[in-house]
């Protein structure tokens, strides 16, 4: 099925290249480098449907702050927006992980008469009415995150979700030869992305005799993850491997294992420099799916393309190969601090300014 879809994409791109005769893909800009973000459909937006003369005001509604990935993503997003002289205002709102606040944020941005709206729904059902209202008002809505077709997004850009969780689940199944006890560190309860990652894990473990011995919500946070890991380690519960829903929790748990002198077990991670450092230093057995902070710039580029009147695919997905024991060293940056996340769209001097040790 994936091959058929790829063939369809190639055919569609070739067709338009022929039509243009320029060799430039004016309708489907590379939002990020190929392999990092690719179309998942051949369906496209209508050419010129959202064309507006600048300068533009672009609004973005994000669920909330709380970890270094978000901080970097927000910075990369604003940096990309600032590079475009046609973007007069880029308004970033965050809802403090409160669904009701996100509803209010989107309403405020519509009232502010933004030219385009970027929405990362915390829970797609709760913002459906507001996204519908924006579309009805002629505002193109670019969504980031799994919406399962619930939202009438102009363009949907996605990453993580079930595939993120499944990558870790499949790796653990292979590492444990299909049997054993694992601990599961989840993200923030009630957040759709978190649930999808967990469902992906369960799919990955299907057909095995692996048992989930403990399941906790670490809020994707180093401090909370560390406290929970300390509790589990001190409780003496058996563990053969640990699955993490990402962010800073793996690093926290490795610190706990080291502090208590407990031998490390296979743990899943994420493409964070701090994790890559600790992975390198501890000879840990791990896998780290990449959840690129470049998604923010991709959202801005998609928004600009729509406002320029260009065509885009209706949906994109970021599913690069996870970092493995073999590829880890290509991604780890010794010169940068723990807060850096791969892969970044920032120029090197900006990376050094923000993340140099």
């Amino acid at each position, binding site marked *: 099925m994936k091959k058929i879809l790829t063939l369809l994409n190639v055919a569609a791109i070739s067709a338009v290249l022929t039509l243009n005769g320029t060799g430039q893909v004016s309708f489907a800009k590379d939002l990020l480098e190929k392999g990092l973000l690719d179309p998942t459909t051949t369906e496209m937006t209508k050419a010129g449907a959202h064309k507006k003369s600048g300068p533009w005001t672009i609004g973005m509604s*994000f669920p909330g*702050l709380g970890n270094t990935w978000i901080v970097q993503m*927000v910075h990369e997003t604003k940096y990309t927006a600032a590079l475009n002289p046609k973007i007069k*205002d880029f*308004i*970033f*709102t*965050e809802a*403090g*992980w*409160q*669904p*009701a*606040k996100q*509803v*209010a*944020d989107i*309403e*405020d*941005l*519509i*009232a*502010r*008469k933004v030219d385009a709206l970027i929405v990362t729904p915390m*829970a*797609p*059902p*709760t*913002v*459906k*009415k507001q996204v519908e209202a924006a579309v009805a008002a002629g505002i193109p809505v670019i969504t980031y995150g799994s919406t399962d077709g619930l939202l009438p997004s102009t363009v949907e850009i996605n990453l993580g979700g079930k595939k993120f969780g499944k990558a870790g689940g499949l790796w653990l199944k292979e590492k444990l030869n299909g049997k054993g006890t694992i601990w599961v560190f989840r993200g923030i*309860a*009630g*957040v*759709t992305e978190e*649930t999808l990652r967990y469902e992906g894990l369960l799919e990955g473990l299907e057909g095995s005799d692996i048992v989930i011995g403990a399941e906790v919500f670490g809020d994707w946070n180093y401090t909370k993850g560390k406290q929970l890991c300390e509790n589990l380690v001190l409780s003496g519960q058996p563990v053969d491997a640990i699955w993490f829903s990402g962010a800073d929790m793996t690093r926290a748990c490795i610190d706990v294992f080291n502090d208590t002198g407990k031998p490390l077990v296979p743990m899943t991670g994420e493409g964070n420099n701090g994790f890559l450092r600790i992975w390198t230093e501890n000879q840990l057995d791990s896998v780290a799916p990449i959840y690129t902070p470049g998604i923010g710039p991709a959202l801005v580029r998609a928004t600009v393309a729509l406002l320029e009147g260009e065509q885009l695919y209706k949906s994109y997905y970021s599913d690069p190969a996870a970092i493995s024991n073999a590829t880890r060293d290509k991604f780890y940056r010794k010169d940068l601090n723990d807060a850096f996340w791969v892969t970044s769209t920032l120029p090197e001097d900006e990376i050094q300014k923000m993340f140099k040790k």
Partner: protein
Amino acid sequence: MSSIGLLHSPGRSGLSLVALGLPVLLFVIISLISPSFLSVQNLSNVNAQITALLIIALGQMIVAISGGIDLSVGSVLSLTSTLLVSVDPTLSIPTVLLVGVCVGLVNGVGVAIFTVHPLVMTLASMTFLQGLALLILPVPGGSIPGFLEALVDFSFLGLPAAFYWCLTFVLLAAFLLRATKFGMRLFAVGANAQNAARNGVNVTFYKILSYVLCSTSAVMAGMYLSARVASADATMGASFALESVTAVALGGVQLAGGVGSVPGVIAGTITLGLMTNGMNLIGVSPFVRASATGVLLLIAISLQPRKAIGA
């Protein structure tokens, strides 16, 4: 009255120039900075956005006047949301109301009879109810009963449904506090429970009743908010516990009890609503937003010194 005296809380209403002046000041500042602020659409948005908080803050005010605090209101709101999409639509309203009354009774009995500190009692129920809500509905979604959606989605005489929701609960709360024996005795209990008891007031009963009313207000807010977003979410109410306490504190309600008023709570809620709306319209960095709210609260509280009532 001197200019300094105007800043102080006059009597048991707690109303002061600071409490009433803050929303007016914010209104003027935001309308000067952001041209879209005064649009009908935006003002209607602000009204809809503050409705759930106002309903809960009115409930919180009743508990605060009695000398308590209820941190479980947000979880009650979330639980209401999950129950609305999980039980038969014909039974949904009675079910959530019953749950609200039960939670209020448990909180009230814990505080008034078993003398558990209100913070500890309602923190425990908050945690329990939040877990229960996530158990019932781990993933947001579901369909809210159609009649409930219709109740938040109409306009009458050119005014949106949110306005009438606010009006209804404001009038109810004002009536309870000003025109009934309940209101008078509630102030007496909060000001000095021992004195109230010596004068024949059943302190235990009024304390329990205040928690029941507070939980019921959280249920009503949950019904409103779920219908407004046409969906349920087990974490929908998480921020309302602290926001409702902030709103009543901004409105001059003294958390030690015996002092508070409906106009003060309205002013406090509008202040918070305008802060959020204004910062979104102006485009204030999210990193600055939380701090700005904290600073505003600190200034407002500092300018409204506590006054002993009923000592």
